[in-house]
């Protein structure tokens, strides 16, 4: 079921990669304007991302949260809901996991502490996704708006907790009042795989999440219903599927994974939540998911590529002395190119389908006005 790959599917799968390369070409133009040699700059970038073991580990470390978020985004998209709220879901996941491990860490045996901390993060993210999910299912509130608003709430909540209830006691003692949490007990830290690099076992959690979600979506009845609702709500309703329930489930699971990403980042890397923690990860995760063609397994190479882009660009910025905004611009270009490649692919497949349905070439400037029944 859905496993066969045709030549045109292959082209479609390659489209994001082509878009990525075109974005780099466009970025090269900007580097030229800045008076930098783009070839040299990209050379530095490549070296920064893959040049040696340390940089490769950095890339993998950076890819880990992106992968987990992207896998969750895939679920939401497959259910036909657009989750822009991964950012906020990640924040509440991270802060809840941190809170749990700081306050309950001492009472729990280490063997339970790590899984429970991660679970708490997941649940928090799931709840943060459940709110827009419920609003969508019950009142048909546009999930793009509600998830964005939930992001704002999460940011403020995070700031409030870090500067008040959860502030690091040491910051209070020293009177510096930097908004950050206390450090998590060491028992809740994820194991490092290759010290001194930061690479940690969260990478395996990400890979496992990708496989599990793939199995969920394509091998289980629940995933089948999620995809059915995502593809045709009317027909799903006619077939007796509870559409609101699966719309909500899509956002809840998506939120759970974003929350997990937050928990993994805090237990794997930072060991405390600081202001500005993981900012932008949620949005990058969406791009990673799109780049991976909204397929959980596609998210694996996609997250790796984006991890490399971020790490490499960092190195480039430091070595080539380009303004740090250049990196943001480069990422923005990738987003624009990838998202528009998605648009082109959709046009292309729509046309291909129209051609199959009507057996005719379609003139470029017009689109069929009615989604009328195919009766031929």
């Amino acid at each position, binding site marked *: 079921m859905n496993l*066969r790959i045709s030549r045109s599917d292959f082209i479609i799968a390659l489209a994001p990669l082509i878009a990525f390369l075109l974005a780099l070409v466009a970025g090269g133009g900007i580097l030229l304007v800045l008076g930098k040699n783009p070839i040299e700059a990209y050379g530095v970038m490549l070296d920064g991302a893959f040049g040696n073991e340390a940089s490769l580990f950095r890339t993998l470390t950076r890819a880990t949260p992106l992968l987990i978020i992207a896998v969750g985004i895939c679920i939401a998209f497959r259910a036909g809901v657009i989750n822009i709220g991964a950012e906020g879901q990640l924040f509440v996941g991270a802060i809840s996991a941190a809170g749990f491990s700081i306050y309950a860490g001492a009472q729990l045996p280490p063997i339970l502490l790590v899984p429970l901390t991660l679970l708490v993060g997941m649940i928090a993210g799931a709840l943060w996704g459940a709110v827009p999910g419920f609003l969508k299912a019950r009142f048909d509130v546009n999930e793009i708006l509600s998830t964005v608003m939930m992001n704002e709430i999460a940011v403020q909540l995070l700031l409030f907790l870090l500067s008040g209830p959860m502030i690091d006691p040491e910051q209070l003692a020293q009177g510096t009042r930097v908004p950050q949490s206390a450090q998590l007990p060491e028992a809740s830290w994820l194991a490092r795989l290759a010290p001194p690099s930061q690479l940690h076992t969260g990478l395996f959690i990400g890979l496992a999440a990708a496989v599990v979600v793939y199995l969920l979506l394509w091998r289980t009845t629940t995933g089948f219903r999620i995809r059915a609702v995502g593809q045709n709500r009317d027909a799903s309703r006619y*077939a007796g599927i509870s559409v609101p329930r699966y719309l909500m489930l899509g956002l809840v699971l998506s939120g759970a994974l974003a929350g997990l990403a937050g928990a993994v980042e805090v237990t794997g890397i930072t060991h405390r939540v600081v202001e500005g923690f993981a900012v932008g990860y949620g949005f990058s995760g969406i791009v990673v998911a799109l780049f991976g063609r909204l397929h959980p397994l596609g998210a694996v190479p996609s997250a790796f590529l984006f991890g490399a882009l971020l790490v490499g660009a960092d190195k480039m910025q430091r070595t080539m002395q380009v303004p740090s905004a250049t990196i943001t611009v480069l990422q923005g270009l990738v987003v624009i190119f990838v998202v528009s490649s998605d648009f082109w692919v959709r046009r292309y497949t729509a046309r291909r389908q129209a051609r199959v349905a009507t057996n005719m070439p379609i003139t470029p400037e017009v689109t069929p006005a009615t989604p009328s029944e195919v009766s031929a």
Partner: protein
Amino acid sequence: MVATLPSGHKRIDCAEMRGVSKRFPGVLANQNVDFDVKAGEIHALLGENGAGKSTLMKVLYGLYRPEEGQILLDGQPVTFHSPADALARGIGMIHQHFMLVPSLTVAENVALGMKPKRGIQLDLEEVRAKVRQLSALYGLKVNPDAYIWQLSVGEQQRVEIIKALYRGGALVILDEPTAVLTPQEVKELFVTLRTMSEQGHALIFITHKLGEVRELSTRITVMRDGRVVNTTPNQDVDRRKLARMMVGRDVLFQPDRPPINAGAVRLTVQDLHAKNDQGLPCLQGVNLDVRSGEIVGIAGVSGNGQREFAETIAGLRSAVSGVVLLDGKPILREAVSSRLKAGLAYVPEERMKHGIIGSFSVAENAILQDPDDYARGTFFNFRAISRHADQLIRSFNIKTPGSGAAAKNLSGGNIQKLILARELSRKPAVLIAAQPTRGVDISATEYIHHVLIDQRSAGVAIVLISEDLDEILALSDRIAVMYEGCIVGVLNREDADVETLGLMMAGVTDHVN
């Protein structure tokens, strides 16, 4: 006779195709086809799906280049490299799927793709005036300033016709124009087409519906498997002969019905009230009993509550009041899924939108309602799924490259067979079939009728909702007529004829009862 048309363009007295062959990878879509059409004529091109009708017309319209053969206009050989060439010579085509931009107005759509006459700016005012003039001349009611998205399908089709006329269509090809129309819209279209032919246009009308051909055309060309079977004047043939030419064998219009063997009442509807999408009452106290082993046809002009009736029973529309019993159990408060489990099956009217998930495979669509039955725990048993799908494909003769093919790529008739196969594989107690053969070709229609009769023999209680009176009369044991949200009368098959039903459908019930 004058050589110009009311639209101001030159007429085409005779268009001729000689020995046209067109090949696609793996199929010979047209094989040495001769075809001609004359001014003032409505020439019907009849054939089952895949017979090669659209292909032949796309050759005439310059979309395809034939491998062999030639086209002659008024005796002159012509070569078209693109539709633009054909348009320049007065040939227009209205496709099965309309080519309109929803966000533009009627006038803007008509103007689209036309070269401005003066300067760069297209004079929209002039286009508007011309649209008004054409709509008056040909009786095509259209407001030039309406946006396409505001128009019904029938109105959009009128826009397409005006577009073709505006661009000088002396010969207009209509590819299955009635497939998407309601019966009322079909009537209006036919009036327009007759006007056009009287004005001297040459018309080619593609269809697979025999009734329409008989009603409208002057000449008929039947195609089968890429070849012309015959071209004859309308009055020289009858439905039976046409059907035989189309399908290549005798077609049963009246399926063999074993004598009725009705059993217990399986579906009871009492005083059912419901509202339509606008929130107005549309079912106003419907009462109906359907017994095991009988087919109850519901006749009526569309919009009298038939659709809402089916939806309310299926659980897709909430009832205001009333009782619906399935095998004695009340189901009106149940969710769709529990009604399905209780033994209800539903073949919805809009099969592409409601009956299948187009992007899902045939196999996935085959298990849409009961995926749990093909899973161990929560994990699918793919072998069971494909066994089930293959069995449906085989026993219902569904033409598909395989169970993995996307459902939307099947033809309408095969999609309908897939839906029917799926519904019946659940061994329902009650089947509600809404417009089961609308837009479906003759052999698939024949097959679907045969299946319904079989299910009747197997003891299923069947509600057949159809606007096609011939279909209702051919299949039903009893016929209920719906008018303004009520069932105004129920006739036994023996007592029903088209006249009586027609009157009842118009709300005249004095002579009944």
